[in-house]
């Protein structure tokens, strides 16, 4: 139960940050592919840098163990990404 509440809270914070960054809007998503508004990229890379440095520092102190790292299968990841981009540019997800 406590785990469920934490998960919901994390989801709320996740949705809130996506909304405030403007990623819920079609034009924000498409304009990153047109190089006219790089907000999506700035948002994604900031999140990545904060999370990756935070997590690796925590692991360095032995405070956290990583969950399963997403599997690498080069063709699948790349082809999936290629199809995903088409959908992303069409719908603005």
């Amino acid at each position, binding site marked *: 139960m406590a785990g469920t509440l934490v998960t919901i809270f994390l989801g709320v914070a996740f949705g809130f*940050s996506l909304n405030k960054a403007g990623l819920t809007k079609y034009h924000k998503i498409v304009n990153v592919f047109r190089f006219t508004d790089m907000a999506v990229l*700035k*948002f994604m890379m900031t999140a990545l840098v904060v999370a990756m440095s935070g997590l690796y520092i925590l692991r360095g102190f032995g405070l956290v163990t990583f969950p399963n790292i997403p599997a690498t299968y080069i063709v699948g990841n790349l082809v*999936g990404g290629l199809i995903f981009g088409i959908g992303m540019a*069409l719908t603005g997800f």
Partner: protein
Amino acid sequence: MKFILNYIRKETWSPYVAGILLGIVGILAVLITNSLLGASGAFENLAGMIGKVLAPTTFDNMYFNFIMPPGISAGVILLIGVFFGGLIGAATSRTLKWGKKDSANSDKQWKMIFGRQTWKRWLLAFFGAIILEYAAGIAGGCTSGLAISGGMLLAPAAFLFIAGMFASGIATALIIYRRRY
């Protein structure tokens, strides 16, 4: 204090501030629940649940038995939270368009490119979402589940995915916008 409240009411934050917030959420997810954030997996869990009831033999395969077991997973619960998080975000910036005119198709740029009919927006969103979910199934995650959550663990899969996503996204945008690119 007042500055913080005013900032929360802003419609669009600096992407750096929102990114730091998401980064902290990502760290907390690993630290507390020992799992990664993700969106696309939850739809597969739900689809598997419906499929097992409607067509048990079709859904009795490797993928739905082992890779994406059906049921109310943590991802589904997270997705419910994401819905309300987005709702709160829109409510605090007073851009919540619940029931208002044009609320289903309010993006100016979309109207300029595809036309102002609402059904077009919904139709394209529906088929685009099928493409998205299919691709996420192949790659093993979506923007949040693979690119951001995988990237923060320095998974090579995430960076391959980001490269593919941008390559085809730029190509698709070029085709849609042509001279207006």
